[in-house]
C-alpha cells in the first residue's frame, strides 16, 4: 500500500492523525499533515482507508500496490 498526501489541499483537520496516528502527523503551526510512513503495512489498511474516506479536503489517496 502506498499513500499519496496532497499538502496543498490539506486543511489541517487532523482527522487522519486521529484515524491512523502511526501513519500521519500534522505540523503544529499550520496543521498541515505529513506522512510518518509512506508505505504502511497491510494491517494498517482499514485505519488508512478510514483516513482517506473521512478527509474533508480529499487530500489523501491510498494506492494498492
Amino acid at each position, binding site marked *: 500500500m502506498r499513500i499519496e498526501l496532497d499538502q496543498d*489541499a490539506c*486543511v*489541517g*483537520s*487532523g*482527522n487522519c*492523525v*486521529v484515524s491512523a496516528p502511526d501513519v500521519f502527523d*500534522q*505540523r*503544529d*503551526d*499550520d*496543521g498541515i499533515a505529513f506522512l510518518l510512513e509512506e508505505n504502511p503495512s497491510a494491517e494498517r489498511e482499514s485505519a488508512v*482507508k478510514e483516513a482517506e*474516506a*473521512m*478527509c*474533508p*479536503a*480529499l487530500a489523501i489517496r491510498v494506492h494498492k500496490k
Partner: protein
Amino acid sequence: MTGEVSAGDASAKKVVIVGAGPAGIAAADALRAADHTGEILIFGEERHAPYDRPPLSKQILAGTWLPEKAQLRTSEQLAAADVTLHLSVRVASVDVEAHQVTLESGEQVAYDALIIATGVTVRVLPFGHQLEGVHVMRTLDDALALRSHMETSQHLAVIGAGFLGAEVAAVARSLGREVTLIDPLELPMQNVVGDEVGSMIADLHRHHGVNLELGHGVASIEDNLGRATGVTLDDGRTVPADAALVAVGARPAVDWLHSSSVPLTAPKEPGAGGIRCDSSGRAADDVWAIGDVAAWWDPTLERHVRVEHRMTANEHARSCAHDILELAPTAAKSVPYFWSDQYDLKLRSFGLPSRQCSFHVVEGDLADRRFVAAYTDESDRIVGTIGAGMFKAMNWWRQQILDGQTLGEALRLKQSAENSA
C-alpha cells in the same frame, strides 16, 4: 422500476441519492466501502461534475487552483465504483409511502433507501440581484463569475461578514481590490466566534486595508444603466462599489419536499429548518438525510442540530450508510469541525462555539493569533473551541469536548499532565 428486497438482504438495496455534492458523493463511497452491492443512483441538478465548495471562496477565487482541482470525482472513478450519476437532473418530489421520487421530467424512480443530500440555497436580498456586478457564492459558476468580474472591477462591497464574506474580502484584498465589508452585527462572524475572536478578525481585516462598515444594514444597491455602482447603508451613506457579493447566509434546500411527509424542523428552532432526523440520520420510513440540509438529533445536547460544515458531510454519509446496510453503528464519536482561511490566518474550530458561550483563552495569546479558546455553557461544560497556529493543542482540546469535560476538569487534567511531563 421497483426495488423491493427481502429482509436480511440489506447489501442489495437499491439506493437513490438526491444531490451530487460532497455529502451525496461521500454516501455512495461509504456504501461501497461497506460492501453494498445494490444499485446506486445519484441525481444532481448542477451541470458540473461533482466538486467541492470550500475552495470556491479561497483558491478558486484567488486563481491559485483551476476548477479541476476541486473536483470530487471523475466519471471514470464513479464508473469504477458502479455508481450511476445523472447530472442536470432535478428531483421534483418524493412519495415516501410509495418509495419513489419523481424527476422534473415526470419520470418516476423507485428506491429501497433514499438519501437526501440537497444542501442549502443562498439567501438573497429583496433588491439588487438583477444588477450586473451583484454576486452570490454557492456554486462553481458563482465563484467563476465573481472571479471574472473582479478582473475588471476596482471596488468590491461584501454584504455579510460571516465566514464566506470574510474569506472573500481577504481574497479580494490579496488581488489588490478596494474592499468594504458590511454587516449589521458589530463584528465579523460574531454569532459563532463571539466578541473576542471577532475583534481579532476585525483588526486583521483592518490591518490588511479592508474598510469595515460594521453595525450597518444595507438599504439599497445603486446602479447606473443596470450596473452596480454603490451600496447604500442604513444611515444613508453610499459606499462606492462596482462589484458586490451578497453573503447573507443560506437555507436548507427543502422546497421540493413540501408536498411530502418528510418532516422538517421549524426555521427558528433547533435544526434551523432542516430535515428532522434521528441520531443516525433517519427522517422517515427508508429515508435518510445528510450534510447541510439535515438536522440530526444530538443525544448529548438533546436537540436537533444542523451544521453547514464540510466535515459533517463525510461523517453523516458514513453513519447513514451503516444504518442503511443494517450494520453496527460506527464506533468513533465525533465533533463538528470547520476551518476558515483569511490572509495567513488559519482559523480552526471544533464543537459548536457560539456568541452565547463564556469565552476563555486556554492556550497561547489571541493578540499573536496563536491561541486556543474554549467556549463553555452555563454548567462550565466545553461545547466548542476555536484556535489558530497551535494544532497539537487544538487536538487535545477536541478530545475534551468529546469527553464532555468541564473547563475546570480539563484545566486540572492539563496541569497534571504538564507536572508529570
